[in-house]
């Protein structure tokens, strides 16, 4: 579950979601228009089926998605990346789906879902409202899985543009190399060397905002400033694997 305090709001007009308190800020975002979502689903269609009789295709079927643990459809061959994220506690809710659909690498490095991402928050919310129809009791929201809105994990382009100081990154990396090996070897903790800097920064901010679930990494990223993350990205990007 995503941490932070979740409150829940509903109006007669349909699916209104969430007061999501992250730090001091509170967001209330409309989950979206399921009719628009139905049209957007054509972007997913050649890989995913949804609705009665849906089967696994290139991607797993997407019925009963809400509240489901990631990578939990029997018989579908998931990537190592998403299985690890699932073991770390990743579940599908409006916020995690929004992060995944925005850029699958936000949440799951090494995911097999080869989808460029949907940058527009409103479109994502529309699509999620549509996906919500195929979960348990979609109309009966309070009893069903509590879903939350997007809490602004959209990374500010200014953050991605920050130039890090590799020397500072070198010093800061001392905290990381207690677990991550500079050789890039993965004996149970993933490699973080020679990544594209953007992917690294996205992953770190996803932990920091607690969109990615892992408690160790949430704690570590939670203490890092934007500049520090950029410096670490710059340092690790230039280690040869």
């Amino acid at each position, binding site marked *: 579950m995503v941490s932070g305090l979740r409150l829940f709001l509903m109006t007669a007009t349909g699916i209104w979601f969430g007061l999501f308190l992250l730090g001091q800020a509170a967001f209330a975002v409309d989950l979206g228009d399921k009719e628009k979502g139905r049209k957007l689903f054509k972007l997913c269609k050649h890989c995913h089926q949804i609705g009665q009789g849906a089967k696994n295709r290139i991607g797993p079927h997407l019925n009963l998605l809400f509240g489901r643990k990631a990578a939990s459809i029997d018989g579908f061959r998931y990537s190592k990346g998403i299985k*690890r994220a*699932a*073991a*770390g*506690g990743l579940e599908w809710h409006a916020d995690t789906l929004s992060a995944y659909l925005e850029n699958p690498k936000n949440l799951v490095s090494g995911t097999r879902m080869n989808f460029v991402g949907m940058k527009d928050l409103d479109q994502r919310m529309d699509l999620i409202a549509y996906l919500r129809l195929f979960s348990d009791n979609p109309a009966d929201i309070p009893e069903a899985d509590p879903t939350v809105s997007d809490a602004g994990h959209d990374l500010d382009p200014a953050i991605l543009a920050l130039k890090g100081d590799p*020397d*500072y990154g*070198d*010093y*800061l990396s*001392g*905290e990381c*190399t*207690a*677990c*991550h*090996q*500079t*050789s890039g*070897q*993965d*004996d*149970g*903790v993933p490699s973080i060397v020679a990544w594209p800097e953007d992917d690294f920064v996205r992953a770190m901010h996803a932990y920091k905002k607690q969109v990615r679930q892992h*408690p*160790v990494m*949430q*704690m*570590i990223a*939670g*203490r890092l400033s934007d500049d520090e993350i950029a410096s670490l990205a710059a340092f690790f990007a230039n280690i040869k694997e």
Partner: protein
Amino acid sequence: MGLDRRVFMGGAAVAASSLAMPYGFAKGNGTPKVVVIGGGAGGATAARYLAKDSKGALDVTLIEPSRSYYTCFFSNLYLGGFKNLDDLAHSYGTLASGYGVNVVHDWAVGVDRDKKYVRLAGGARVPYDKLILSPGIDFVEGSVAGWDILAQNKMPHAYKAGSQTELLKAQVMAMPAGGVFAMVAPPNPFRCPPGPYERISMVAYLLKTHNPTAKILVADPKPKFSKMALFQEGWGTHYDGMIDWIGPDFGGDNVVVNPDEMTLSIDGEVTKVDVCNVIPAMKAGRIAEVADVSDGRWAPVHARDMSSKADKDIHVLGDAALQGDMPKSGFAANSQAKVCANAIRGALTGSKIFPAKFSNTCWSLIDDDDGVKVGASYKATDEKIAKVSGFISKTGEDAATRANNYKESEGWYAGITKDMFG
């Protein structure tokens, strides 16, 4: 060492003033000298980072009697049969050949703080500009009635890894059917707070397969211990009825052992036992007393750079240090060593000193694929190393999460031992 050497007591903030200009070097010749006593979690890391980052600008000597360091971390997994003894052994070859650390296999037996040299058991004198002590722990004499270090073969502590760990395992394997394994748990503070309880879990795991009617008896002077709810839940599910934990309410703090008779008395009630793992109260490794930087038990340090409060040119790392909120763990020693190395390098070569930052995570294995973890991050305040935030595994977690914790801990072990020994 006499009390007259406590001239630096009070610990003025000196690190900053040393930023701009390197010290006048004590020994006259060019390269500043850092001597590290103890090649364990803290000492090996400090030596490696100093040598690696100074690229020849520092002369780094590591003094350590053993040629192979056996990690205490994961030694419980050896007891449980998940690791071989060899998996725990690390040599100093890479530190010497890959990083240019001068590794001296000897005991440090004296520290002259005025003349700034370390005396070795072999007689040599090793001069320093900065000295790092990371000697780990020694036991407080008389803390368990009836036990002293001469009894360690009959009643092993296995709290320094290697032959003691091997001995304890051999004793468990030789227990008669339905026999009794006893542990005398230590009072706070001690090395690796979850360590004794992970050990109980691993012994139970071993006995469950080899000797399922055996019993485990734990006498504990503490009413609470690390990850208590997680361990007790796990003991209930995996080893129901096997483990009897006796806290201070029932005399766990009133214990006498008799190594010749192999008995354990708890509040006067004498039990015959087959194995008795005595983990006495602990204090800083003896060299901290010899150097006169200890308060009697531990060596007080400044959080920002791990420098001793008694001497600005001595730094103390790991278990031996009295630093504040961090547990005594290998992870913590490794984390402190990097902060210390950065500060010493800055002081001696003028390189940039970045702010101190620490973290710790400790995993424990309760049963096959049932791993739990606890962790926290810390910052340096004027007073101590202070906890900032933390997390702990929850009771009732699913099996996949627990299995993943174990896998992660294996990744950590591989990573951190490379971070220490290269």
